[in-house]
């Protein structure tokens, strides 16, 4: 910075112009399509607003209705249930696969396994849900066929309230664990082998080496993946639309599906915005909590 002295003020001025030019498109886009919508969401949530009328200030009316809305409680419980199942399973399976892959092995095995586990991540959730609906059918489904062979079932995967959300979790883990695997594998490869070798010399067994040496060094990546999957899970939508449509009843309806229903089927923009605000608060709170907790268990050295 010391080079930038008074003699270079003209240059610094031109740098400001260059900077302004380069960030202008993104700043305009960000303002119109991100910042303004956030502000408007909050504003609309305090109005009565439908497709045919303009927004009319209604105070906290939408929020008092929210408190008494049993369906809101239902969709939040569903989303929470999905999240607490999907996130640990995704991260856990991703970690297990990453550890299994981070060994000496024939190149063909490594390449095949890595590609196979990762490929579903690249395919749209709508597409894979359309395939998986055939696996989940009660009478003609492929899963129940094999379960029947070992005397289990038939499980009503999609048509019972007990199994609807677990089924969506199964699809989610199959589709998404591969990305967690890749990110965690890259993390493992970034750990210098000296650390685990030193522990081996000290007589630590494989489990001790993993738990006391590798795992602490991997916490930044685990934290990142967990945050990524947490926010993703709170937005769950596509797979439920295809597999259960939110049913039976509201048994698998998610928060975003409820926003969609209120906003774009009933065109109750005010109420839909109020639900959106609650989701925004939940996502912000979860993220902040994550970051605070991370200070305790993530080690960055």
């Amino acid at each position, binding site marked *: 910075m010391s*080079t930038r002295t008074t003699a270079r003020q003209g*240059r610094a001025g*031109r*740098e*400001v112009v*260059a*900077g302004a030019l*380069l*960030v202008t498109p*993104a*700043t*305009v*886009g*960000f303002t*119109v*399509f*991100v910042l303004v*919508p956030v502000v*408007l*969401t909050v504003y*609309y949530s305090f109005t009565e607003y439908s497709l045919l009328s303009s927004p009319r200030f209604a105070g906290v009316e939408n929020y008092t209705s929210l408190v008494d809305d049993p369906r809101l409680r239902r969709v939040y419980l569903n989303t929470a249930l999905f999240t607490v199942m999907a996130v640990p399973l995704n991260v856990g399976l991703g970690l297990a*696969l990453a550890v*299994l892959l981070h*060994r000496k*092995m024939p190149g063909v*095995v490594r390449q*095949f*396994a*890595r590609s196979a*586990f990762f*490929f*579903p*991540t*690249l*395919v*749209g*959730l*709508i*597409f894979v849900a*359309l*395939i998986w*609906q055939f696996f989940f*059918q009660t009478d*003609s489904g492929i899963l129940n*066929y094999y379960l029947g062979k070992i005397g289990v079932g038939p499980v009503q995967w999609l048509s019972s309230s007990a199994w609807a959300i677990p089924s969506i979790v199964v699809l989610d883990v199959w589709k998404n664990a591969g*990305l967690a695997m*890749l990110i965690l*594998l890259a993390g493992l490869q970034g750990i210098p082998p000296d650390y685990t070798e030193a522990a081996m010399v000290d007589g630590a067994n494989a489990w001790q080496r993993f738990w006391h040496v590798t795992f602490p060094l991997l916490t930044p*990546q685990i934290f*990142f993946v967990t945050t*990524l999957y947490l*926010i993703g899970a709170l937005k769950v*939508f596509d797979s439920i639309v295809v597999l259960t449509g939110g049913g039976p009843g509201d048994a698998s309806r998610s928060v975003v599906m409820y926003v969609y229903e209120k*906003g774009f089927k009933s065109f109750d*923009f005010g109420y839909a*915005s109020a639900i*959106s*605000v609650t*989701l925004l608060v939940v*996502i912000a709170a979860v993220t902040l909590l994550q970051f605070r907790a991370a200070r305790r268990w993530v080690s960055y050295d």
Partner: protein
Amino acid sequence: MTRLRARVGATAANLILVAGGALFLAPFVWMLSTSLRPIGQSLTLPPKWLPTTFDVSNYQALASQDYPILRFMQNSFVISGLSTLGIVATSAMAGFAFAKLTFPYRDILFGLLLVSLMVPIQVTIVPLFVIMQRLGLVNSEWALILPALLGAFAPGLPGAFGIFMMRQFFRGIPDSLIEAATIDGAGKLRIFWTIALPLAKPALASLAIIVFTLSWNEYFTPLIFLSSTNEMTLPLGIQALRPPFGQGSSLVLAAVAVALLPVLIAYLAGHRWIVESFTRSGLKD
């Protein structure tokens, strides 16, 4: 003894990986096999995982006038292609400015962008719909393309992601390189164009593949903004035209197979590179 045990363990682990990998790919193989059977034989049990016939009648039905899959595909290509172009261009520009230039409000602006990564589009969808309506863009592909050309978001991805990724990349370019070019009299825009951008080609390509894949797969935003069949993208159109379950099942699977084709081809052509791109995208240093 312990060496024998270690070898048995390693072999078992390899077997688990191969078997598990095959299990993960099985749904795709079944999809392809079933799409190659006549419509009446799509749901036979026990399931037939491998092709039993090579009947292309489902694909012929898709190509007929009744099922506008070519239209969907064209819409998907236009929206994903232009969105990718927009996000890559704006991310490169803004990323370079945030990494290497000094200008007023830089850090505040960048902080706001970072915070916006926490605001999913699902949360602001009502006002976005209203804004698009005012702009006259509802039921037009431009409702999806315009925000990407301005770097705000692509279908399925916040624009701030690209800006953040490119900023991280440009920060890795040594300041001395920029200083040297400055002393030679080059302006910052020229340095961006002639020095930084060529160096950033691999990172830009990674970003492009990520944006394209996510836009290609996106369902939520097209669902909100596009309503007529003529404007629909592949995920939206295939889901909207889905026949009642059981009827025409293998037709749906053929449509999904067609929709997967570009992803599959890209993956086979450059899977090592794609794996690298997605891995890097997840890693903030």
